[in-house]
């Protein structure tokens, strides 16, 4: 290694200490660069601009504490990651790279997907930091006569709604609900789908037949009709929505996993495991599922986006998350009535949904391309 290289590295360390992410950004790794740099600057901004609230959050409600932890952890992670990245030795390329390394490299070349990933990371950070970020209490109603339907202004950057509540604050709090709904519902469905799919694919025979017939039933049914029937007639609490969304989304995953497992089952290492006399449970959990994970991750990423859109759809029918809890879907659905008079009510949450779902889809597409060797060039 040349001296020049070492000098450069030392200089990068200095830059990294002040502005983590900048070295990566300047050396062309803009994806990681932006993520780290924005996290760092954003968290610093919160720390200074919302100093009082940060102090107030000490020993506050659980979401405040969580926000505080998130803040500190993000700062530490951003800084140390950049430092170690700059000082660490370059790993030689091309030797001993795993399938995942290859995928990561393919993914990082896909610019739109990386942009999507940055948006998602930012979204989750914002969602976690919301109690520190939001300018107002999302449920606080201002003066109903004078502060209703106020357009964009410095006091209310995204205006106020029909109850004179701050749209920006509601948007921020809505992010928590929408992202959480997507995440939890998809977790439920992926777990169920993966297990059932793996069992069906591995066991075959009657078990497979039964599971797959059930999958057929659920999949060939207009999902929304089922959702309306259940949520509409039995009540629409947030738990109900998450549960029902989760419990109706899994068949897709089950089909994917079953397909993967069927092809994996014929492969040598699984047959070796069978020959070695491992239990079926062990083979399914330790060997089959991890190897079928790629497509599942893709499906899950796309599923989160779909779920957020679906929740918005339910809100349109009046079956979404119930007020005053803000969710993006509810905000769009309620605000659509004022599209002509107060466009900001539904436009901003609508755009939030679009960009979030778009980000998840870009990442999902990127992952699919990256994980599928056939599509790589």
């Amino acid at each position: 290694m040349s001296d020049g290289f070492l000098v450069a590295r030392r200089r990068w360390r200095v830059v990294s200490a002040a502005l983590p992410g900048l070295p990566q950004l300047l050396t062309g790794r803009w994806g990681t660069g932006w993520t780290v740099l924005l996290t760092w600057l954003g968290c610093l901004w919160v720390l200074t601009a919302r100093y009082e609230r940060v102090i107030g959050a000490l020993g506050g409600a659980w979401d405040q504490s969580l926000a505080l932890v998130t803040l500190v952890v993000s700062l530490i992670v951003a800084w140390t990651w950049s430092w170690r990245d700059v000082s660490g030795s370059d790993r030689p390329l091309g030797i001993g790279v795993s399938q995942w390394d290859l995928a990561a490299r393919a993914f990082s070349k896909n610019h739109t997907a990386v942009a999507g990933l940055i948006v998602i990371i930012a979204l989750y950070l914002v969602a976690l930091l919301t109690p520190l970020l939001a300018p107002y209490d999302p449920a606080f109603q201002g003066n109903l006569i004078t502060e209703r339907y106020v357009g964009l202004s410095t006091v209310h950057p995204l205006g106020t709604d029909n109850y004179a509540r701050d749209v920006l604050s509601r948007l921020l709090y809505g992010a928590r609900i929408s992202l959480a709904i997507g995440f939890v519902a998809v977790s439920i469905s992926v777990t169920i789908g993966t297990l059932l799919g793996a069992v069906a694919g591995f066991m075959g025979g009657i078990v497979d037949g039964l599971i797959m017939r059930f999958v057929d039933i659920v999949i060939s049914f207009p999902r929304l009709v089922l959702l309306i029937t259940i949520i509409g007639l039995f009540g629409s609490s947030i738990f109900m929505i998450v549960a029902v969304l989760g419990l109706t989304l899994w068949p897709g995953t089950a089909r994917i996993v079953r397909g993967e497992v069927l092809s994996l089952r014929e492969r040598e290492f699984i047959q070796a495991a069978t020959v070695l006399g491992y239990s079926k449970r062990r083979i399914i959990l330790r060997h089959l599922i991890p190897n079928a994970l790629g497509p599942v991750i893709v499906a899950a990423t796309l599923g989160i986006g779909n779920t957020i859109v679906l929740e918005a759809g339910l809100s349109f029918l009046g079956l979404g998350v119930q007020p005053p809890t803000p969710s993006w879907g509810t905000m769009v659905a309620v605000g659509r009535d004022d599209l002509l008079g107060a466009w900001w009510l539904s436009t901003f949450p609508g755009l939030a949904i679009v960009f979030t779902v778009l980000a998840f889809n870009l990442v999902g597409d990127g992952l699919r391309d990256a994980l599928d060797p056939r599509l790589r060039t």
Partner: protein
Amino acid sequence: MKELFKKGLIGLGAVLGLSSCGGSDAGIGSNDPFCQQVIPAVETFMAEAREAHPIPDEPRYGGTVVLGTIGDMPDGLNSAVSSNYTDAQHQQFVGLMTLINYDAGGEPRAYLAEDWEVAPDGRAVTFHIRQDVRWHDGEQTDAHDVAFTYEAVTDPLTAFPNAAFWDHYVKGPDGVEVVDDFTIRILLEPHADFMDPFRTLGILPEHLLGDVPRDQLKLHPYGTQCPVGNGPFVFAQHVPQDRWVFEANPAFPEALGGRPFLDRYVYRVIPEQTTLLTELLIENIDVYIAPRPDQAQQIIDNQNLELLNFSGRSYVFVGWNARKPQLADPRVRRAITIGTNRAEIVEAILQGYGQVANTGVPPFHWAYDPGSMPSLAYDPDGARALLEEAGWQDRDGDGVRESEDGTRLSLSIKYNTGNQQRQDIAEIMQQQLSAVGVEVQPQVVEWGTLLQQINTPDLRDFDGVVMGWVVEFKLDDIDLFHSERINQPYAWSGTDNGDIDRLLEELSITADRTEAMALWREYQELLIEEQPYTYFYFPDRLEGVNRRVKGVEMDARGEWLNIKDWYLDPASR
């Protein structure tokens, strides 16, 4: 195989092509035997009538008016089974005729009945039916039709939803006497506003429906598939969930104004209100029935449109379940009412298009006189004082009051899915009442489920419920507050107050208005004291009307009130 592929594509194109010219022209009902019989008869008679009554040479005649609303008419012109407001409007003013209707002052005037006499003891009304009214299939409308309709709606088998209208009348064949073909006598007990039901009841054709078993009337195709009326407009077409088309009746009696000006009147169903407003703004529809208050400004701002508003017949309230321990004390209910800034809510939710309600007597009613009532104005301090007095104090400092035995003053307020105004009320109450130490939890419930929860006598699973009533000109709260009805579906509040019972009974039979006025005042004062409901407001009815439609009059009697006198500005046709 390639050929097959191509053929497939052509086939698809053919399906689309076919479908794009295949008709929905027919509407429905064309394959029902009843309708197959009835429709040609109407067509024949109408053709004759058009010959006999040529369109007067006057520029106001002609053209089509399109009206848009959010819902279809569920029972159409079948007045014996319907309870829907729009249905009733079409029965009264469009397709059918009622015996009488009201003038602008709310006084009865002749319509199908040329004249009437009330027996001196108030136990009978005799109507003289016009002799120049024909059903749209050519049959004469006469006293037998009236008798049939009266018997149908008072027969329990029919399950007429508004059976309460006829509480004080002698029901069934015993209550009606056909004196001659054009004279009919109806027997009743003397009571207040006894002419009102005759204003609402659209007379049905006996020659078509007389043989239908009463319990089958609800399912009969007459109402929505091929109604035959005798009103100013003739049913032409009904595409469910899409449109009704009516055409001018050339044979409508000259004495009542003769043929309507409009050639056609189209009633369109557009469930989404943003779409409705758009269609009004791009002039695809001429009249938008009941836009939301927050859409009013858009209509006002458009120079081609006009916003009409009038005091409607409905009011919105929160009904309290006094069976619940937190709500048993009237003082608590009153504190909740004065702890809520209802004037602000009217301003905010209705954009000022409405009036604060203190009782269920609406502004168009002759007994409406809010000035003389005790005030229920916004008074948070008064509310706190009342709650203290009733023994509710915040004992653990969590901002919510508790009773001595530790019951928290925490209430759920239910409302139905998809109703923005009711949601608004629940949410604003939550916000405002927290300031006086009352915790409110808005809870949305799907409509059918909600009705079951609040209506089932042994369930009554609610604390408060945001609801609305549409009232008739004849006010009658017996079903709501009389203790005898406490186990009937609508006794939500569970009010059990002897004075209220007495007043309700007296009111229902007091025909003299000055006498009744005093009773009304007393009754309303009691209501304010008892607070079975927190009355919110009487919303104004708003209407968006294109200025090319002239002669439109709308008031509490309804939007369709004088539709036969509407005409299109000849310059803009």
